[in-house]
């Protein structure tokens, strides 16, 4: 076994690999760029080597620098994680030439599977069922159109070298083929330095299901069941689970066998993933093979009990696979949420900054429920503009799907992040979504269920009562302490009024709805705080919450819940299950006065298009004086290597254009103004 390995990656995956290596008694070497000087992975590793400036091309993607770091530290092997150099044949080759072991598949397998077109040919040869499409490189728009028409709409245009949704477009019409082809090509070029794209049939209402395979250098290949990753936004996976609610044992066995056959056909000798697009009728077609550890591998680990990183290291050290196909037993259900620094209320635009507060739920194994949080950040750390804005992968495992989802939901409620925008409210809302809970998935799920984007989760009567009761309980505890202030008049106690009126305003991003009123009486009864609403609706609350705590944990009625608390002057914001509300807890006389107060309307910023994130202006699609309709493209801003199309939210006329293509803008910089 290796004595020392280097991890040619950063963030959560580097930390995750270090954990397993450490458990196996292997020393670890991290690499870091200038931007990652204080990053967690650099702190966690036994040694850390600086490899250059923040730009990935000059650090994490620089093969020579990684080799140099290996030589300097005497690392015998390199784990590439995912992304960066993980699927570069040249990297695997370079390591081989330097006598360093690549903890991943052999260069030949990477070459065979790395190119999407080549991989399809290989798959067809191995008798894996494939999607109808054109496997050649497409020269221009005209050819793209011709091929699309031959296959029949809808079609998908994809970058040959692509992955992760970059350089990928779906076209339903000839016009969309033209636009999609151009965009896919330019994104492919900027993301991968390779503008080759291809076209294939797009399966309607498809599901994304992938098979984890594991091979060794002795010709053994097994599969570890499937993961379903149908919940995607713009082809980026958001929620993954294992197993899939769609598959039956027979289909699983068939897909597994094909995946193993393909792996064997290319002499696959590490952990890899064979992705399929699956129809609702369980028909499945090969999509691509990822010759690396997947982001979502933890869900497989939790249902199989197999540490994939450990297996990768063992097979890389030429050990024989100790697990036989028959040993693989799928146990329970695992669900993973990807927590990203992005603003769900502003069309998921990336957000960067300091993690002023980062308080994840506790990792634990209790009562058959596991909570695992794979992260590469810490409180006081930074999500920088240079890399993927992932904060963490939150994974829960339980005996059943429903329990795993409930556990995920609770864990998300207890996940407290401040300092930047993040998608936890959206993930929490997804967990509560009836269609997700029913397992009726497709890759169009988010587009179908959130056609106008995410605007917060609607509050039911019962939800509002819970929030109001928690607010009243918090206010009650704060009030108990206020009555202990020194210097009070003696001989007369300050009497507490029992009646309260909670004004509750729903918040979605920067929009705050008009308040709804929830009159209740609140008192302490045998340790519990009891909130009585009108009629006979009563909620008993049990909690040890104390002023200053950011999460209110307690029992409300029969449910154990966690509600995030952010105090404000005269109010606090409560977040629970994707719902965010601002609550004011008033006495009756305060409520009466508050009703008399005029409603103030915030200054109108709707007349301007603001840059939603720090980024580079790629193009401005309109000119001064031009009339635009809602939905029309106004400008394209590139951030985090993604082109973000900014569209008009309403019909209007452009008054002034303030930004120029090529200009770098700060967040909220004015791009243009409407008349």
């Amino acid at each position: 076994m290796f004595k020392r390995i280097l991890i040619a990656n950063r963030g959560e995956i580097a930390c995750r690999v270090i954990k397993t290596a450490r458990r196996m008694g292997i020393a670890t070497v991290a690499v870091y760029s200038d931007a990652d000087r204080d990053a967690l992975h650099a702190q966690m590793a036994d040694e850390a080597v600086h490899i250059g400036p923040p730009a990935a091309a000059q650090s994490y993607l620089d093969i020579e620098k990684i080799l140099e770091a290996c030589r300097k530290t005497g690392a015998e092997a390199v784990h590439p994680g995912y992304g960066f150099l993980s699927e570069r044949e040249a990297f695997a080759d370079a390591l081989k030439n330097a006598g360093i072991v690549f903890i991943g598949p052999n260069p030949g397998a990477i070459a065979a599977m790395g190119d999407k077109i080549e991989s399809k040919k290989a798959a067809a040869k191995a008798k894996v069922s494939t999607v109808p499409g054109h496997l050649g490189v497409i020269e221009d728009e005209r050819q793209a159109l011709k091929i699309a028409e031959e296959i029949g709409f809808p079609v998908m245009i994809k970058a040959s070298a692509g992955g992760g949704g970059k350089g990928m477009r779906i076209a339903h019409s000839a016009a969309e083929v033209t636009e999609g082809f151009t965009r896919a090509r330019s994104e492919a070029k900027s993301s991968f330095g390779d503008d080759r794209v291809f076209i294939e049939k797009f399966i309607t209402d498809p599901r994304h299901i992938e098979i984890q395979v594991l091979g060794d250098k002795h010709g053994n290949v097994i599969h570890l069941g499937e993961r379903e990753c149908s919940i995607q936004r713009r082809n980026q996976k958001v929620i993954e689970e294992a197993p899939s609610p769609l598959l039956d044992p027979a289909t699983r066995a068939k897909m597994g066998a094909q995946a193993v056959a393909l792996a064997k056909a290319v002499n696959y000798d590490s952990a890899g993933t064979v992705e399929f697009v699956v129809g609702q009728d369980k028909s499945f077609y090969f999509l691509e093979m990822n010759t690396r550890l997947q982001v979502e591998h933890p869900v497989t680990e939790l249902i199989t009990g197999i540490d994939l990183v450990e297996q990768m290291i063992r097979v890389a050290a030429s050990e024989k696979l100790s697990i036989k196909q028959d040993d693989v037993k799928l146990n329970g259900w695992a669900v993973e949420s990807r927590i990203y620094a992005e603003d769900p209320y502003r069309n998921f635009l990336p957000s960067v900054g300091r993690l002023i507060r980062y308080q994840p739920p506790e990792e634990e194994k209790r009562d058959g429920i596991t909570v695992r949080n794979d992260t590469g950040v810490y409180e006081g750390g930074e999500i920088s503009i240079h890399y993927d804005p992932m904060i963490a992968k939150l994974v829960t495992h339980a005996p059943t799907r429903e329990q795993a989802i409930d556990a995920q939901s609770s864990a998300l409620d207890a996940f407290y992040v401040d300092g930047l925008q993040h998608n936890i409210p959206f993930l929490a809302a997804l967990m509560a979504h009836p269609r997700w809970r029913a397992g009726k998935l497709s890759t169009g799920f988010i587009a179908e269920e959130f056609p106008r984007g995410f605007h917060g989760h609607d509050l039911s009567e019962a939800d509002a009562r819970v929030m109001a009761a928690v607010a009243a309980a918090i206010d009650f505890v704060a009030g108990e302490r206020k009555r202990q202030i020194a210097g009070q008049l003696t001989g007369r106690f300050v009497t507490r009024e029992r009646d309260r009126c909670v004004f509750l305003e729903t918040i979605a991003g920067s929009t705050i709805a008009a308040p709804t009123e929830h009159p209740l009486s609140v008192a302490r009864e045998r340790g519990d705080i009891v909130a009585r609403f009108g009629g006979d609706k009563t909620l008993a609350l049990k909690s040890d919450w104390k002023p200053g705590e950011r999460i209110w944990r307690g029992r409300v009625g029969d449910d154990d819940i966690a509600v995030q608390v952010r105090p404000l002057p005269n109010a606090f914001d409560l977040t629970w299950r994707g719902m965010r509300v601002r609550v004011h807890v008033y006495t009756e006389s305060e409520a009466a006065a508050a009703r008399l107060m005029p409603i103030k309307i915030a200054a109108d910023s709707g007349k301007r298009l603001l840059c939603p994130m720090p980024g580079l202006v790629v193009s401005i699609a309109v000119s001064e004086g031009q009339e635009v309709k809602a939905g029309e493209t106004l400008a394209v801003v590139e951030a985090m290597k993604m082109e973000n199309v900014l569209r008009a939210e309403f019909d209007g006329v452009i008054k002034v254009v303030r930004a120029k293509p090529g200009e770098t803008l700060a967040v909220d910089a004015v791009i243009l103004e409407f008349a």
Partner: protein
Amino acid sequence: MAAAHPRAMPSGTKRGTNPNLGLSTMDILETLEKRREAARVGGGEKRIEAQHKRGKLTARERIGLLLDKGSFEEFDMFVEHRATEFGMEKNKIPGDGVVTGWGTVNGRTVFVFAKDFTVFGGSLSEAHAQKITKIQDMAMKARAPIVGLFDAGGARIQEGVAALGGYGDVFKRNVVASGVIPQISVIMGPCAGGDVYSPAMTDFIFMVRDTSYMFVTGPDVVKTVTNEVVTSEELGGASVHTTKSAVADGAFDNDVACLLQMRRLIDFLPANNRDGVPEWPSFDDIEREEPSLDTLIPDNPNKPYDIKELILKTVDEGDFFEIADAFAKNIVTGFGRIAGRTVGFVANQPMVLAGVLDADASRKAARFVRFCDAFEIPIVTFVDVPGFLPGTSQEYGGLIKHGAKLLFAYSQASVPLVTIITRKAFGGAYDVMASKHIGGDINYAWPTAQIAVMGAKGAVEIIFRQDAGDKDKIAARTKEYEDRFLSPFVAAERGYIDEVIKPHSTRRRIARALAMLRGKSVEMPARKHDNLPL
């Protein structure tokens, strides 16, 4: 607001009205209740409704929100003016435009007067002024805070000099009470002419946005005299006074928000200059460590960071009441608690003008420091200051004198002073920001601190003027200077810094220092008073 009063008779029983028997005690009690009810409606339902339509509460409603429920004891409800000119003798309303009395805020005594806009527009008469001075005198006797709620039209012109005299009586008492009991003024409507000077002499002024304004002379007079056309809001609205003039220390969206925040502020304030800060049980461990503070200072010394994060992570439960938050944002002032006891915080804000000291920041902080010192509130100072702001506008604006105010205030303060240098402490600003030399009791530095006369670039250009043309030499000299001076250790070697501390331990260090300094006592020479550079 009609409170239920106990009645001895069962309801429905008719009381005798035999004229021969005179008034029964019960009748007399009923008369009292009727007179009270009449007084409580002030200027009448119509005017109350008009007040509500403007988004404002009445004087009694405001007092009801400020004080604990049922705690208000009103004085001088039946006082009427004594004017006879211009037919005023026929126009009398009980209370005469101001509601006065006392009550409690979370059980602690607070005196209050509230101008009643529904009665003679809240204008000040001789009798009205006497009601206020009576309350001021009582607050001084009881050594308890006084809060004035303003919503009035100035002097009652019909009373002439009697009204002006009344103002003078109020002003004089404001000054006598200054530094003895906290005085808070809340502007909740118009406040003009003579009315503005009483608030101006109190410790804090707060305003309500859009419904309040303050000026010495109103838009009409301004137009007549200077031909300038302005609205009341432009001349003296909350945004003007909280951002430009610094007359007001804060603004709130409406009456309710404002009064509830006044309750919160009072929880931070001592009752007077002798009782010491109020204390309540804290739920926040004084040993709490904040590892995230170890990365608060960015690697790049020219990159800003938010000093409020440090304040919020240091104080109990993240509870911080900021004073003058919208003015001179390059310095942050406000109240928090450590171990349940009030502490005043002063901190340079690197996010705004790099945290530089300018005239505005100096006078804002100076006033805050003097308030804390007067009321025995310990002061914690967080320092990251690149120096004083250069330039003609600053020098012409009297930066020397304004900067001296802060220097004076800190030098004079005898309360516990705990200072933490987080990053830059350059030049004279190092001395000013509660350094050891001017009376800082405990001075800590983070390892990232740079205590020097100036930054490396400027220093090298002066010290090594002869090498100016030689890039390599300058670079070497700069490195030399940075290594030697841009650290806390030169100061620590001299004992100007008591210790270099880890950022994550800041709260614990401050808590221990404040605990140790609880009994601090400083002797000052006898004098009539000092001569602060005004």
